[in-house]
């Protein structure tokens, strides 16, 4: 546990730490749905944000850690005036931000859609190394004007 696991402000709606395994994604989606429902978002928005977070978690498992592991993913959902700020922290080696770049959808092939979904749903996405140099921080922001 470290400071990233602890709610630090009134704007924190959810802090959820879990091992980076596929079997944990269903429970994570359930927690995200419950949180966003409590915050009053409509079902369609909730399902879209659930997809973006789920795809981000998959990217961490498959590309940052490279496989399923007991190492952690920490998900934080914050809200401010209805805007959503989502942060996903991992403890994997530094990743190339290109791992969530868009691909040409005219190229019909399996794979590579997760990054597209994230960009389609969220307004801003960024990836940076954790300040301590251990892991990555993925940030996604969705505005509701």
């Amino acid at each position, binding site marked *: 546990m470290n400071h990233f696991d602890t709610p630090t402000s009134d704007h924190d709606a959810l802090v959820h730490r879990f091992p980076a395994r596929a*079997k944990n994604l269903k429970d994570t*989606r359930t927690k995200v749905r419950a949180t966003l429902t409590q915050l009053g978002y409509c079902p369609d928005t909730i399902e879209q944000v*659930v997809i973006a977070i789920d795809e981000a978690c998959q990217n961490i498992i*498959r590309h940052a850690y490279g496989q399923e592991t007991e190492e952690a993913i920490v998900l934080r959902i914050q809200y401010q005036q209805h805007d959503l700020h989502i942060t996903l922290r991992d403890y994997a080696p530094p990743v190339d931000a290109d791992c969530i770049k868009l691909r040409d959808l005219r190229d019909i092939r399996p794979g590579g859609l997760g990054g*597209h*979904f994230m960009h389609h749903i969220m307004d801003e996405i960024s990836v940076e190394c954790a300040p301590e140099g251990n892991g990555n921080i993925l940030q996604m922001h969705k505005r509701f004007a």
Partner: protein
Amino acid sequence: MEHSVHVQPNGHIVSFSGEIDLENSPAARTRLLEVVEYATTVFVDLTAVTYMDSSGIASLVEAYQRAKKTNVAFVLISTSPAVLRVLQMARLDKVFTIHETLEHAQHAKH
């Protein structure tokens, strides 16, 4: 996720229900590729799917491409918003043949 295969005179029906995600999409992929191998028409019934992620879509695309190569008709059946949402985001709703019901799909020409 649960799945089943029913063989009918006009095609094989592969039905999925529940959530298709990173944990269980490998099983969905395996089943779809198996059926495409020996069927002439495959109806993939996704009506009862409540969630599908990019790995589930990837399984559908791979089976669709395998079917296309071997002249197997590959048809999706879904009115599930969870499925249609991701197909539209991936712009695959115009690539796949999609029917609202199995009955419609079975009466259409493929």
